[in-house]
């Protein structure tokens, strides 16, 4: 396609004078990633910077710098160069992403008033996504922290689970504390069919006790928190069965993982 019309649009755009349908059209063209127009806009920005520089410099009122330095000193404690603690780091990154996204959103919206609504929606969607990601991350951190705490306790045991029947390649480990409960980590377990889920069981001297349902990801991995058994009664066997996704009070489906007695 002939690029020539875009050269004219790029010049007008660089001076901030493009309006109406043409601006929409040009911004779409830019969003498609036109290297020629990007280079032209960059060159124009440098030309306009050189034009600004060609004027005699003028020292602004000193209070502007004073106020800025004050504002920086009082509102940016997170940027003082100290290394944040590792667990805080993840949340900090998320916050920074939100800040940058919000800033970019604000800057662009101010410049292209007509697209304000669109940009705001985009920024809100991004923020929502980042918040969801952050929540998932926090949940994961809580699990890891809990496991680390369990591992410090001499009463904690590690129990190996082996694949059975329909899933001989599956494996798992339970990190178990008699009073605090524990976590099960499984691998190579096929995704449960629609409407089904894996259910965890703790088996002592009496009937198997349900210990919650879980799913595995597409790679066959899953993590599940196992609640402590009432009264800290010893668990002799940990087992996983395939059950209706709401869970059942006593096992009905095939056993897919179990610890040896």
């Amino acid at each position, binding site marked *: 396609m002939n690029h020539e019309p875009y*050269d*004219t649009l790029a*010049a*007008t755009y*660089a*001076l*901030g*004078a*493009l*309006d*109406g349908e043409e601006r929409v059209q040009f911004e779409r063209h830019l969003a498609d990633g036109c290297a020629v127009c990007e280079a032209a806009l*960059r*060159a*124009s*920005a*440098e*030309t*306009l*910077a*050189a*034009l*600004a*520089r*060609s*004027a*005699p*410099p*003028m*020292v*602004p*009122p000193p*209070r*502007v*710098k004073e*106020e*800025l*330095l004050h*504002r*920086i*000193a009082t509102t*940016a404690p997170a*940027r*003082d*160069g100290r290394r944040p603690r590792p667990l805080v780091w993840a949340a900090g990154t998320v916050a*920074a992403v939100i*800040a*940058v996204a919000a*800033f*970019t959103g604000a*800057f662009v919206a*101010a*410049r292209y008033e007509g697209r304000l609504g669109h940009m705001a929606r985009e920024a809100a969607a991004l923020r929502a996504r980042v918040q969801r990601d952050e929540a998932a991350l926090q949940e994961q951190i809580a699990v890891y922290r809990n496991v680390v705490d369990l591992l410090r306790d001499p009463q904690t045991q590690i129990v190996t689970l082996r694949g059975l029947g329909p899933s001989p390649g599956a494996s798992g480990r339970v990190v178990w504390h008699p009073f605090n409960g524990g976590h099960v980590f499984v691998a190579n377990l096929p995704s449960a069919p629609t409407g089904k889920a894996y259910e965890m069981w703790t088996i002592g001297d009496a009937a198997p006790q349900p210990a919650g349902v879980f799913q595995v990801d597409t790679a066959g991995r899953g993590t599940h928190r196992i609640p402590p058994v009432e009264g800290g009664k010893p668990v002799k066997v940990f087992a996983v069965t395939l059950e209706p996704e709401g869970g059942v009070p006593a096992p009905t489906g095939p056993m897919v993982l179990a610890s040896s007695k």
Partner: protein
Amino acid sequence: MATPGADLVKQMATGDREAFGRFYDRYAPVVFPLILRIVRERADASDVLQEVFWEAWRSADAYDPARGSPEAWMVTRARTRAIDRIRATRRRSETFVAPLDEAVAAAPGEPPGDAAERAEHRGTIRSALDRLPDAQREVIELAYYAGLTQTEIAERLKQPLGTVKTRIRLGLERLREVVKTSP
């Protein structure tokens, strides 16, 4: 040897306030006359200047030297914010735009006083633009300093839109040559 501007921005991104001070000292005298020329009131210009440098501090980590010099980064930001300011003012006062001769006049922030000195100032400010044909200079001034869109310029000058676009493009190309060859 002065630290390159891009390195100052990089230091600012790590929270280096001292680097910000030097960055300000270097670029504020360049963008302040531009802002003042656009918004015309010294108090407004000071507000816009502060806003522009505050944004630079907050977004220093988003600056990419491959996309332009720190000077272009700041000048683009300053021009955008200054135009935002005058458009907001126009909306508030429900007037349209200043008369043409006012819109293209030199910065009103210059000290009143010696007319010859002022003229000399203006001469320097406009030296690069003055080397453009009048018709091209006029459309660039209306767009860049007065914040008019191409449609508004066409109405103002009673010229077809196509003519305005061509003048803008040729004017910008000419300006690029002029600043390239100027010392």
